[in-house]
């Protein structure tokens, strides 16, 4: 039966599964071993009890090993900063490049419960708590303890987060060369401009698509120089097809998880799974296998009509990822169920067009990023998805210091309230929520109470 178990319970279950002949990849093992690496937050989380979830967690928590192994095998590492699902597709089109997402360091203060001092390093560099927790990335670069220093660093700039641009510039100033590429603020085409309909439904002037395409050409050239291979259209097209496989699995997973009568997969595992869309956790092919396993588990549960959470759980659409993973457990404890998400990279869940020249297709995807357009665009997509997944309320989770969260929450909230007439609540989730748990619980419980009260005629 599906259920959520503690880390200690997972170790017992792991032994049972192993003795029963569970086939797992070489990075597998009992989850508790990651605590020895300092990932102490894991002790406080509750996990889905399926073998597919075990594989997902082990895949996530062994990324650093994978990167070192890739380097030892002679592959080149590319750090793709502030890029939500475009450049990794290009990098993985070459068989001797491995892309990863240094921004992912924003979760280290949570997972290691502030024990690494990464935020203190950022503080000393002048990037204090008025910035997004992604500033932990600076500390990760300086200590070199959480990922190998990549052979090439790319970073999108322009219509991206102000925080991140400042942090990346600071990193650059510390002697880490960065290959910048520019993404313009997406705006609707003027009447006299040639327009392009982007994946996901937004439109942009053709000139913007062409501009981004030119930026991606620079990246392509850099990748060719780094890898010593030509990144031709055929390779890029194959890379796009593989990325679309990831996106297809995720789309199906989301549809089932958010709409099945019984919730078939917890919010926490769904969050981790969705994140794979943007970075592939340093192994695109294994990402496909991991997601396929998770999807099969979910399908089996849906077919059997089993799941967990109370059937009357409040169906909530969640906006922005949380800095503290434990909040997803807390949310479910309070009677909530995730029915739709917008974790800042909805575009990376849409299929990349396969009927266009590949660089143009990728340029369109980059411009479809909800964060490079107006908040009204972002709210519009959220409204559509709330309708699709039948959510009863919207929860906007702010990331402390993240400029887009501070500015966009109110706008999104007002638009959703006006268009859909559903409750909208904002809360702030710092990397460790232990000290504010009662206050967070109150907000989450109150939202669930509000949803349930609205169901009564």
């Amino acid at each position, binding site marked *: 039966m599906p259920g959520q178990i503690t880390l200690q319970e997972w170790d017992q279950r792991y032994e049972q599964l192993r003795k029963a002949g569970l086939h797992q990849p070489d990075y597998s093992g009992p989850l508790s071993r990651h605590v020895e690496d300092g990932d102490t937050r894991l002790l406080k989380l509750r996990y889905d009890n399926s073998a597919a979830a075990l594989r997902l967690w082990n895949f996530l928590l062994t990324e650093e090993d994978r990167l070192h192994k890739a380097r030892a095998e002679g592959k080149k590492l590319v750090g793709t900063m502030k890029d939500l699902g475009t450049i990794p597709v290009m990098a993985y089109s070459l068989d001797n490049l491995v892309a990863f997402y240094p921004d992912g360091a924003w979760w280290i203060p949570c997972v290691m419960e502030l024990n690494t001092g990464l935020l203190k390093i950022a503080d000393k560099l002048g990037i204090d708590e008025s910035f997004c927790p992604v500033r932990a990335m600076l500390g990760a670069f300086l200590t070199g303890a959480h990922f190998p220093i990549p052979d090439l660093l790319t970073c999108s700039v322009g219509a991206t987060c102000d925080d991140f641009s400042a942090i990346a510039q600071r990193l650059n100033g510390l002697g880490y060369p960065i290959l910048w590429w520019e993404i313009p603020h997406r705006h609707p085409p003027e009447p006299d401009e040639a327009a392009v309909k982007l994946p996901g439904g937004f439109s942009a002037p053709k000139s913007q698509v062409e501009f981004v395409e030119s930026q991606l050409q620079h990246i392509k050239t850099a990748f060719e120089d780094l890898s010593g291979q030509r990144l031709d259209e055929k390779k890029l097209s194959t890379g796009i097809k593989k990325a679309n496989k990831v996106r297809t699995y995720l789309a199906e997973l989301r549809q089932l998880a958010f709409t099945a009568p019984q919730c078939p997969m917890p919010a926490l595992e769904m969050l981790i799974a969705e994140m794979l869309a943007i970075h592939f956790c340093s192994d695109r092919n294994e990402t496909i296998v991991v997601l396929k396993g998770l999807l099969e588990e979910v399908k089996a549960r849906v077919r059997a009509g089993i799941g967990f959470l109370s059937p009357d759980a409040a169906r909530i659409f969640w906006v922005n990822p949380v800095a503290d993973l434990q909040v997803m457990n807390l949310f479910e404890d309070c009677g909530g169920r995730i029915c739709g998400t917008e974790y800042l990279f909805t575009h990376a869940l849409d299929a990349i067009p396969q009927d266009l020249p590949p660089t143009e297709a990728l340029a369109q995807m980059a411009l479809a990023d909800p964060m490079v357009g107006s908040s009204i665009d972002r709210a519009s997509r959220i409204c559509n998805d709330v309708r699709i997944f039948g959510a009863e309320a919207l929860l906007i989770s702010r990331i402390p210091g993240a400029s887009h969260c501070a500015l966009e929450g109110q706008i999104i*909230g007002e638009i959703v309230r006006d268009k859909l007439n559903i409750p909208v609540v904002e809360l702030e989730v710092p990397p460790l929520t232990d000290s504010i748990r009662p206050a967070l619980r109150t907000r989450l419980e109150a939202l669930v109470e509000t949803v349930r009260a609205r169901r009564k005629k």
Partner: protein
Amino acid sequence: MICAGIDAGSRTIKIVLIEADTLKVITKGLTDQGVEQDKLTSGLFRKLLKNSGIDKKDVGRIIATGYGRNAVSIADTTITEITCHAVGVRYLVPDAETIIDIGGEDSKLIRLDRSGRVRDFAMNDRCAAGTGRFLEVVARRLGVDIGSLGRMAAKSHSPAPISSMCVVFAETEIIGLLASGTAREDIIAGVQAAIAARVTALTGRNIDLPIVFTGGVAMVSGMDTALQSALGQTVTVSPDPQMTGALGAAILAAKHITHY
């Protein structure tokens, strides 16, 4: 049958006992919050029962709310203060559509629909600058009783501008204002305006009327005026503002009994 609502707030514990059928308040009381809050709550509850000649077995249901609700062992269940304030205020002011609740450690804005159900809510989760804590800090710094703040603020002709969004920095500003000879009355009025401004940030662009002000800070005179000024709308102080959460909890307890 009698029902009880307990609001275990951050600064005080409030209890209301009502007649389940008529919702008539039988008795109510409050005590300061402390480390042993469960003991304090039980003590207050026993005292109210004794003073009113009520036997514990006549109390059919107890609902706890407020920050410390989960630590109240005598409660049958818990409901958040958002829901309880909404029910309590709506009972007292039946046409209320917006509730502003300022307590000791937080402030919240609750939007109601026409039927009185919570539409949604917003809470100040960033600092103490929009809460009763700010007033306490100011009263201590100025060496005056918190109960006299409103009276003093009413004498202000030129409220001092308080620009800091943080209570700690605002305290520093207050020291500077005192050193420069600013009247205490003007400082207090400035602080009230700063709290009101902080709270209005929760409202967004639209606010539905009528607005009802509740929570312990609603009892500090002058705060309603400061809120009215910041919002540009009439603000009505709820009857018995400190007890609305406990009253709402008691009413919900009564509804539980009558529904089952």
